[in-house]
């Protein structure tokens, strides 16, 4: 009979110890979850800021590339204008006297 009581006592003690282990684990689990909730705010901000920062860099790059394109286009336009100006000079020099004679004829006719 004493042995049975001893056995019950031992089992009860181990039950209490087991409950304590589970309670501790539950407390630790709650702590982990709460910490995660706190970290979640900065995780959101870090992820958000990283994407925005990347987008801003890409936006700068787009502007830079477009500015380069505009610069090339500008040089093309000015170079074309320079060629046209040379053509104008050449034609005007060639036809100058002809134009003067035509005006004289128109005035004197």
């Amino acid at each position: 009979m004493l042995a049975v009581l001893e056995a019950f006592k031992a089992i009860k003690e181990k039950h209490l110890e087991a409950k304590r282990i589970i309670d501790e684990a539950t407390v630790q689990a709650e702590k982990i979850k709460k910490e995660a909730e706190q970290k979640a705010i900065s995780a959101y901000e870090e992820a958000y800021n990283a994407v925005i920062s990347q987008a801003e860099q890409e936006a700068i790059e787009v502007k830079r590339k477009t500015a380069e394109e505009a610069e090339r286009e500008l040089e093309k336009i000015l170079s074309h204008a320079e060629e046209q100006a040379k053509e104008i000079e050449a034609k005007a020099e060639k036809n100058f006297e002809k134009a003067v004679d035509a005006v004289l004829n128109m005035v004197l006719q």
Partner: protein
Amino acid sequence: MMESTRAITEMILLEAQKSAEHIIQEAQKSAEDTLEKQRQRGVNKANEVAQSIFKKAENEAEVIKLSITADAKIKANWTMLSKKELWIAAVLNETKDKLRLLTQSKEYRPILEKLITEAGIILGGKELEVLLSEKDSALSLKLDKLAKEISEKTGFETKLRLSEEKPKVIGGAMVRTTNGKVIMDNTFDDILGRREKDLRSKIAKILFK
């Protein structure tokens, strides 16, 4: 009895430890899920904003590009037009110089007489006054002969007299009725001015074709 009791108590502890580990593992998994979900929310929200940042940058860049190229085209056209304008002005100046030279040549007198006659006919003849430059006034023009020609063309007896007024012109003549009410300006200066628009267009066609 002792052995079976030990086995039971060991099993109780083992189960408790397993449960505890499972509880912690689940909590860790839940924590990782929470963090991952928040990261993903941040990324999704930022992607929406990033789209508008990118679109705005593209629009701004395009506006800047258009503005730069439009300015360049305007500048290029303006340079071209200025150059053409210089050449047209040079032609007109050269023409004036040649007209000045012409007024010193023997070919000038018949031209001047023609200009006076034409002006007299346009005015319809009768009593008319001829205005010439200081230099042209010194030419001995046969005004009676010109008056006769005008009379024949208009059917009205015409008299031409040289005015005391000496306009400062390159050449040509002004003819006016003696009461001064109607004037026909056939000076080279006025012809050039009157026909400037037409002349410029013709000069441009000849010069730059």
